[in-house]
């Protein structure tokens, strides 16, 4: 899209937000990087696998053998890999993330472009397949926490009273609570560490941001005339929430969700690095990086997954900041009457114990 093209859609709408986003170089970069990572993760088996994508073995043809065929076809050495197929179309790296070879702690070389870890597993394969684990986990968590946070924020903001008080306190405490400590504590306290427990723990760390933003927006909207009109027409609270209040808070939820994505990935990686992360054999970036703690000289264990992690987080933060600016009608080119709106917002926020200071502080992803 050429920069000269005018903005489309009404102020604050998604169409307009997207066209604002498309104008920003950094946002474009962020979106592209995330797209590439998602693509890498989804099609990880095309980049690194133990078995060929298409292989003819003893006259039999296999397609996507490493997905469709279990370990029966796996052979150990590079030599065997070359000879045991009449025809084979290999992915760029001939190693999957799970198979352990005797090539332990090898620095990057032709066969292992990112080197190998202490158990002889290919680091490149773990990074690529790790993208699937890490992003998948993060998206599940964020979906969960956005739903949870929006519900809590909308209900607390709309109904007020004791519910609002409890939610506000909870949000305040949890926001200030260090995420890594919270996740570690939950993982340690549940009887059996499981993936489900990790997902819940990660979701619990960042729903507060969604709730806070949605709640403030709902409080702002609830005092407006058209809500009063809807109530006068006899609409049920549920209908008012779903049809009239929530659409206003959607933008806030999306912005908070984007920041939560990078934050969740970081918390998960930190926990993995400390050795208390994902309790399954699935590869993650943090787990590979944790190898550095035992073998301090093996820089490749840290550098490559670290770089990917860094790019992921940077692009999500860039996208988040751009989205925040684009979706917020108060921030983008403020006109006269928008200012009044802003003041109403502030007054509403002031009334409800979430002060201006807070909203200024937590407008970005908290550091991990």
């Amino acid at each position, binding site marked *: 899209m050429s920069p000269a093209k005018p903005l489309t859609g009404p102020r604050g709408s998604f169409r307009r937000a997207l066209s604002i986003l498309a104008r920003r170089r950094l946002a474009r970069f962020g979106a592209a990087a995330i797209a590439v990572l998602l693509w890498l993760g989804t099609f990880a088996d095309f980049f690194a696998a133990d078995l060929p994508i298409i292989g003819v073995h003893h006259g039999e043809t296999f397609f996507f053998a490493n997905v469709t065929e279990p370990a029966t076809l796996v052979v150990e050495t590079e030599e065997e890999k070359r000879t045991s197929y009449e025809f084979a179309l290999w992915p760029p790296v001939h190693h999957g993330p799970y198979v352990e070879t005797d090539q332990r702690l090898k620095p990057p070389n032709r066969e292992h472009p990112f080197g190998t870890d202490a158990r002889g597993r290919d680091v490149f394969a773990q990074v690529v397949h790790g993208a699937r684990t890490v992003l998948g986990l993060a998206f599940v968590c964020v979906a969960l926490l956005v739903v949870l946070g929006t519900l809590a924020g909308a209900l607390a903001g709309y109904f007020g009273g004791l519910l609002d008080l409890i939610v506000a*306190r*909870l949000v*305040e*405490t949890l926001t*200030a*609570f*260090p*995420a*890594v*400590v*919270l996740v*570690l*504590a*939950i*993982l*340690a*306290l*549940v*009887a*059996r560490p499981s993936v489900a427990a990790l997902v819940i723990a990660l979701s619990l760390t960042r729903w507060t941001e969604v709730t806070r933003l949605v709640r403030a927006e709902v409080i702002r909207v609830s005092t407006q005339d058209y809500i009063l009109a809807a109530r006068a027409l006899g609409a049920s609270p549920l209908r008012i929430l779903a049809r009239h209040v929530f659409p206003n808070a959607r933008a806030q939820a999306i912005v908070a969700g984007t920041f939560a994505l*990078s934050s969740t990935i*970081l918390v998960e*990686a*930190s926990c993995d*690095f*400390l*050795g*208390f992360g994902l309790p399954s054999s699935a590869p993650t970036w943090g787990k590979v*990086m944790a190898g*550095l*703690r035992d073998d*301090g000289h093996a*820089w490749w264990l*840290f550098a490559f997954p*670290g770089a990917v*992690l*860094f790019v992921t*987080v*940077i692009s999500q*933060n860039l996208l988040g900041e751009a989205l925040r600016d684009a979706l917020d009608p108060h921030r983008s080119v403020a006109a006269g009457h928008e200012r009044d709106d802003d003041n109403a917002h502030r007054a509403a926020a002031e009334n409800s114990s979430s002060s201006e*200071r807070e909203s*200024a*502080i937590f407008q970005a992803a*908290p*550091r*991990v």
Partner: protein
Amino acid sequence: MLWAIPTLVGISLVVFLLTSLLPDPALEAGASTDGTTETATGAIADAPRLLRAEEARRLRFADLPNFINENPDDVRTRTQATLDAIAAGGPDGDLAELRLARIGGAALPTALPRLSSMTTEARRRVARALTPLAARMAVDPFALGVSPDDALKFWERFWQDHVMDFTPGASKRAVERLVRHGTELRAEELASLDTYALADLMDAIEATDRHDALLQLMKIVAKITNLAPPDEATTPQELEALRAQYTFFWYVHRTDYVPLEGLDRVVASVTETRYAKWTLGAFTGSLEMLEPTTKSGNSSPKVARRRAEGDLRHRLARRATVTLALIFLSLFGSHLVAIPLGVFAAARSGRRVDRLLSVVLFFIYSLPTFVIAAVFRGVSGGTVVAPVLALSLGAAATLSRYQRTALLEVLTTDYVRTARAKGASNLRALLVHALRNAVLPIIALAGVQVPQLLGGAFVVEEVWQIRGLGWETLRAIERRDVGWLVVVVCLTAVLATFALVGADLVQAALDPRARETFRRRGEA
């Protein structure tokens, strides 16, 4: 400020729900493992396993209701329940006989007067159940006779003779005499009271610091319960660890031996619940004893040593000092760097330096602490400054970003323009007029930074193996030390809450407008 208390209660509730309402592998294991059965005959063969499973449940307070105990069990209701089960007979009756023997002397004031109202068969079984008790009380086997009827007669006579001994005052005096004189005779006197004196014995154990008296008291307690006894070679330190085990046993089993009356009963309806027991246990550090500590259960030397090493509070103080030092050094350091940096960036806003600085700060801001720490560790090795630097770097990046924004906002205000119009130099307008207001929100941010830095300290301590709170907590997770975890979680919550409150107060002190707001809120 007052919000800290309900918040803490809320957090303890959440942690409690997490730990107790999810399935506990230890409980399931206790219910299913087929232990080697020592008693071989018939229905009783299963009893040790059942009792062990029951003990495992009790150690986790799983036998108690969660929040309100309308009808707390005490020695009377428990004894009555065993008598009823014995009267009903069957396998449950066999189990009840074992239970009655375990309750021991404390059951006698309830059980013996009730014998006359029971059937002959049931009375015989009660008499049989009391045989191990008689052995503990060192009753002459000759007096007990051979047939159950003889034993029954003995117990009736015994009750007539000793009814005056089984009063709270008498047992208290007996324990006092033992502590003071410590003769064999006094020990025998107490032995005839069996578990009826347990409450007073436990009080004495907690109050006494004399090694010999403690040793003697514990030996008596070990004889009438199945706790591990001390021996002559026990060092004072080991004895201290053993005392902790005894105290925990009493914490779990007190109501097995003590009647609840009047006010006690009302209090017990709150305290004799899973939540109350668990919370109190966590805060007094008793939950560290979660492993069974009876004779049959093993208490490994390693565990004993750890317990002897120092109680929870002691360890907490030692570790927290290190971590808090780390945090506050970093907090100070990051402010020291961030404020000038933010001012510099704001002064040069829009120029190339500012743009470059923005990119660099954004990068550092996006780097997770563990990456910074690992890189610093690799570059600098084990110097003292490196951990603090690693921890400060991210915070400094965050703070200078905010400082820049805050200062830029203030620079557009009218009063700064007025100052410039009146002839103040750019530098003076910036540093004297604008910065005074722009630095306030950054100082308030310190409150938010403290808990964030605590999270970072966990990582930094692990990377450099610094023995602070984070390092200890990770070790606690490894050995599933629930007590430590609960305390750390609550401590973190306190720190988080107080840091926020503290930041508000600092801001109120520095900013007259905020002070005004506070006053208005206070009046409202």
